[in-house]
């Protein structure tokens, strides 16, 4: 996601969004564009927090020697009221020889300042949070392409799994991989340097447990514990998964829309639960509910070791699924 190309006429710019790396890149793009037009431009970068108005007025005032200036004010969401007023005042009558960039980290604070800049015709660089896994994959793909490399789809997934949500780390890993492997990256290349699960929650564990993946669920559990996910959260996710599967399996209807209405759950959750309930028998789900309740007590202090209690409960649930499951007779044949 590159910053919008700098329009030479725009002397006011707003960089706004939660993603720190993208903000820094947008500012960098403006800086290099300005330097491209005016190689001898003066550069000022000021943090808005605790910035005296006098200092701002100083850099905004016309220079004695002429020439172009670039002023970047970072973190304007934290600026004091008087400073915000000064910036708003300047935006009404901008200096043609000066490019002013305000950097806002997103959110509601000092929103009025951003609005007044937009009203004054400022160019806006949006840097929204990259939250979904799909967006992260797209980001890595774009990073690699930008650096002149290629990456296979399974390699992207492995990299995002191993590194997680931090864009800076993703970007650094992508550029390192491109320079190491000369442009073409596959899953083996990624596996040489990056392994594991950066982002694992209770729900990841619960998903594996319900689909009866014994090795996978234990692996995810170990990762989750290693990453410091609270025992209670994992236990709750497992209980929630078992309950939702039981809910879905116990009703005769299989229409996701109907179920969503009856169970007051979002349709995507119903669909997921339907997939997870496959292979479970009613008897098995009943037993699993009991195990989930015992586990809930265990992680809240009844068991001497919550780690062990989780692992044992997971093994028990998977065993119950295998012993009572619907696919049992088919598997034996």
């Amino acid at each position, binding site marked *: 996601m590159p910053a919008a190309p700098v329009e030479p006429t725009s002397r006011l710019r707003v960089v706004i969004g939660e993603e720190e790396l993208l903000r820094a890149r947008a500012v960098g793009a403006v800086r290099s564009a300005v330097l491209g037009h005016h190689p001898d431009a003066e550069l000022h970068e000021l943090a808005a927090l605790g910035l005296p108005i006098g200092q701002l007025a100083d850099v905004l005032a016309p220079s004695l020697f002429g020439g172009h200036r670039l002023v970047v004010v970072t973190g304007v969401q934290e600026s004091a009221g008087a400073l915000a007023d000064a910036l708003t005042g300047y935006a009404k009558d901008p200096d043609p020889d000066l490019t002013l960039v305000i950097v806002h980290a997103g959110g509601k604070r000092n929103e009025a300042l951003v609005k007044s800049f937009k009203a004054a015709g400022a160019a806006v660089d949006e840097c929204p949070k990259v939250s979904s896994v799909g967006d992260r994959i797209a980001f890595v793909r774009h990073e690699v392409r930008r650096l002149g490399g290629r990456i296979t789809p399974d390699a992207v997934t492995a990299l995002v799994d191993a590194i997680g949500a931090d864009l800076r780390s993703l970007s650094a890993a992508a550029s390192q991989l491109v320079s190491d492997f000369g442009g073409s990256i596959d899953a083996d290349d990624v596996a040489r340097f990056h392994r594991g699960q950066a982002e694992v929650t209770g729900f990841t564990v619960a998903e594996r447990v319900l689909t009866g993946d014994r090795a996978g669920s234990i692996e995810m559990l170990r990762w989750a514990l290693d990453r410091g996910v609270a025992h209670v959260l994992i236990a709750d996710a497992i209980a929630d998964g078992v*309950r939702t599967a039981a809910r879905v399996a116990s*009703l005769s209807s299989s229409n996701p829309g109907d179920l969503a209405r009856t169970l007051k759950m979002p349709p995507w959750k119903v669909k997921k639960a339907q997939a997870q309930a496959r292979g479970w028998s009613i008897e098995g*789900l*009943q037993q699993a*509910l*009991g195990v989930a*309740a*015992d586990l809930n007590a265990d992680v*809240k*202090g009844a068991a001497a070791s919550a780690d062990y209690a989780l692992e044992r409960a997971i093994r028990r649930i998977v065993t119950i699924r295998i012993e009572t499951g619907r696919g049992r007779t088919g598997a034996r044949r």
Partner: protein
Amino acid sequence: MVAPTEGVWTQLVGQPAVVADLRAAIADPAAMTHAWLFTGPPGSGRSVAARAFAAALQCPAGGDGTCHECRTVLAGTHADVHVVVPDGLSIGAEEARGLIRVAGRAPSGGRWQVLVVEDADRMTESASNAILKMIEEPPPRTVFLLCAPSLHPDDVPVTIRSRCRVIGLRTPPVEAIADVLVHRDGVDPALAAWSAAASGGHVGRARRLARDEDARLARKAVLDVPLRLVSLAACLDAADDLVGSAKEETEAATEALDGSETEALKASLGVGARGPGVVAATRGGAGQLKELERRQKSRATRIGRDSLDRALVDLAGLYRDALVLDAAAGAPPQLNHPDRRADAEELARRIGAEGALRRIDAILACRHSLERNVKPQVALEALTVALRLPS
């Protein structure tokens, strides 16, 4: 000296032996001691006994129930009677240390400095340890009255028990409860007899059943559960209903209380005030508000848990009825829920004595796990599934 059926003693329903012991202690200084522990099943009147005893101690006439001392003690406003009623989950060490300070004072006007701890079983271990020394040897005119459901070490640490004289209350007989409902609360005799029989010997519950239509409906909803449990879907629905009604009860009880408490604290901290010096004055207020929030949350948890516990006890009663009907169908002893005899017989027919016993065990296990902070939803679902009727 006031007769055993007069004055403050009328409050104690069906406990003649206890009244005799307490009256003896009032009459004869040699029979008095510095720490008393009232035990008995819920609803038998532990705290009522403690308050009546406190009134009788303060009253010059030994508890006539009409003088200033008696009336102020029973109303909870007597200066020398300090009552601790935990509305949260536990009594902590901090609160216990406060008690020690009160216990150290001489009585200001009355004859005794009385400290009543209702639900002493909710004292944490450190709280119990903090007041051990004080209970062992309080100042000469100080007396401790503790209430707990039983002498089991889970309820009362042995170290506390050994320092107290124990007064055991029994489950009051049905006739005595009905009698009290008729005479004291003016309930219609037929309704009084019904609610006394349905209350399982719990005086307060009997009164609530007799006077509150909602309580009767709630009880009916709970007792309807066992025969509903024919499929997994029905089990999960029943668990949802039980948890939902507990939640409703909690919300109804806390909503009004929480709002006004928070407003009162904010007003006393000066939140929202204007003028010079306000910022300095309100500093540290956030901590107090947070502390209040914590207490309110603890109280809400307690109310919800009590409500669920009541439902579980009713349920266990019905399975117990099924058990005794199965074992002695010819001449069954008194039932917990005489009005639901048909249901109990149906249950007995379908699950038999063994099934009933297993289900009672499951209910007790569920109560135990609720005590250990298991999520109510999870615990109740596991329970209703265990209670499911065989197809």
